[in-house]
């Protein structure tokens, strides 16, 4: 009985809230329905990008307006739409409800929950399409995003507000880089949005499980438009993820948005464009495929103090075929982003994981977004690696080389070994700095290559247990002072006997 009373009370509340004045509605009728796109007659006064509602409350958004018909992409199941069914204009643009309640949730690009829980409370509605902040609103990138991966934080540092492309073949560790970065934001003050576009449902489930196990769910939003979702939702997913990020950006927070991946996004847009009979260009992509990604990635920025000082960092992922980074979509996105991390399957198969090609990867923000401690050790590291790369071809003649060359090759091999890292194990700033400092300081030169991993493990263990004070000091000051260096030296020579 009580349940029925509750229901009745809710219904009374709902009816009392309902608007009582009748309003004029814009009506149209479906003339053609093809594969997710409907053509309608009527709807004389709709605008581009406006949401219209079909008969069973399925939303669609207007993407084409010709003299006699209006073309709209259906955001849902299109099988039930019949010719002659009525559609109504809502007057709203595409938007997604946002609030603090979206954190920790798994949603689709319309804001509907996918994790089986109740819909989150809506505080505001953020538009999916938005003009990026102008030049006056921005300031230069100066704070780092700690990915917890030594190779990236030392050599290809990413700053808050930067766009860094992660590009590579399938199975080279692109998604792993992104998930490791998200896991490492636990102690930093960064909100993470992971946008899965056209991914397998099983893969998204694995990622969610990984985030749960590493306690990264509370500050992460997972937005998924999987491969079985309508193509329109896959097209909108990155813009929805960016809109959620912008809600937190406008509050002055730092946000990290990962788009996994933009190649599938380009395919979804190509499908919609071909159904709308728009002219096909190179590789059958429509003419505005560049604008599709540029307007998305330009919304990543570091805002001025006067606008809140927040930042939105974008990590787009692009999948290449056969390592071809000069294909159409990869070159488009490389020219938009502020640098790229190139992963190669040769390196991956040879055991170098993360399989980052240091030579070809670049971060155009560079050391402006690095902590002082890291800057101190990274310079030596770059030099050692560069010299090693130059002499790498000679490493086959080891016994016939002079001492100097042998030393450089040895140092390079140790340093390369130190840059390898297991997945889902991010390092803190102090741990990264300590390990690299040990490698560039020559403390590994006398060890055999297999022992380097053992050494690293021991050093990290000590920094997390008995020498935690040293690690905390370095983490806090972000600086490697003389006394820190001496303590590290003592730590290595006395406590790690190999």
């Amino acid at each position, binding site marked *: 009985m009580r349940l029925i009373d509750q*229901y009745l009370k*809710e*219904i009374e509340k*709902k*009816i009392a809230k*309902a608007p009582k004045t*009748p*309003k*004029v*509605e*814009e*009506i*149209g009728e479906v003339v053609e329905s093809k594969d997710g796109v409907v053509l309608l007659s*009527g*709807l*004389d*006064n709709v605008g581009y990008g406006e949401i219209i509602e079909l008969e069973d*409350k399925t939303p669609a958004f207007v993407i084409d307006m010709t003299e006699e018909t209006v073309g709209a992409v259906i955001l849902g199941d299109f099988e039930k739409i019949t010719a002659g069914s009525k559609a109504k204009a809502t007057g709203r643009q595409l938007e997604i409800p946002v609030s603090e309640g979206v954190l920790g949730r798994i949603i689709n690009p319309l804001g509907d929950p996918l994790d089986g829980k109740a819909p989150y409370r809506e505080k505001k509605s953020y538009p999916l399409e938005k003009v990026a902040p102008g030049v006056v609103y921005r300031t230069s990138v100066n704070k780092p995003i700690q990915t917890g991966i030594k190779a990236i934080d030392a050599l290809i540092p990413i700053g808050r507000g930067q766009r860094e492309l992660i590009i590579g073949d399938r199975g080279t560790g692109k998604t792993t880089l992104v998930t490791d970065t998200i896991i490492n934001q636990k102690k930093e003050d960064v909100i993470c949005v992971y946008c899965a576009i056209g991914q397998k449902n099983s893969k998204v489930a694995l990622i969610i499980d990984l985030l749960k196990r590493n306690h990264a769910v509370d500050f992460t939003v997972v937005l998924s438009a999987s491969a079985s979702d309508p193509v329109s939702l896959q097209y909108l997913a990155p813009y929805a993820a960016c809109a959620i990020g912008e809600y937190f950006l406008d509050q002055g927070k730092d946000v990290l948005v990962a788009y996994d991946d933009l190649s599938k996004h380009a395919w979804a847009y190509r499908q919609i464009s071909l159904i709308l009979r728009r002219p096909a260009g190179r590789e059958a992509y429509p003419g505005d495929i560049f604008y599709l990604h540029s307007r998305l990635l330009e919304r990543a920025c570091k805002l001025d103090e006067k606008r809140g000082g927040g930042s939105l960092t974008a990590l787009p992922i692009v999948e290449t075929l056969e390592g071809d980074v000069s294909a159409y979509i990869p070159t488009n996105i490389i020219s938009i982003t502020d640098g790229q991390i190139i992963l190669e399957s040769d390196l991956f198969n040879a055991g170098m994981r993360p399989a980052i090609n240091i030579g070809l990867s670049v971060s155009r923000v560079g050391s402006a977004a690095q902590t002082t401690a890291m800057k101190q050790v990274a310079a030596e590291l770059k030099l050692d690696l560069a010299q090693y790369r130059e002499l790498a071809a000679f490493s086959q003649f080891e016994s016939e080389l002079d001492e100097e060359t042998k030393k450089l090759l040895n140092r390079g091999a140790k340093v390369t070994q130190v840059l390898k890292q297991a997945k889902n194990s991010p390092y803190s700033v102090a741990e990264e700095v300590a390990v690299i400092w040990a490698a560039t300081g020559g403390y590994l030169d006398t060890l055999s290559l297999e022992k380097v991993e053992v050494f690293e493990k021991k050093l990290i263990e000590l920094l997390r247990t008995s020498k935690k004070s040293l690690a905390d000091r370095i983490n806090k000051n972000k600086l490697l002072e003389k006394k820190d260096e001496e303590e590290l030296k003592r730590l290595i020579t006395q406590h790690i006997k190999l």
Partner: protein
Amino acid sequence: MKIDAETKLEIKKFLQEKIEEEKRKVIVRSAYPLTKEEMELIFTLLPFLTKNDLATVVDRTLIAGVIIHYGSKVLDLSVKGRLVNLKGDLYEAY
């Protein structure tokens, strides 16, 4: 087949006029045939209707009230419309 340019223009103008006519057409659907006084009431409330050609349709399913179609716009003042909205609200509430 070559069409004379003037003829083309005339046909285009004719088409435009017909389309404009369609837009200005007003259909008033009511549950029972409306009396003169009731029509007068509608005209005073919605003045733009008098200028255009009017068609009236009787539709019993509306129960009461009127639905006014003009161009692609619709003004739903019928009881049936209110009931459909209520149904939608009830389903949304639970």
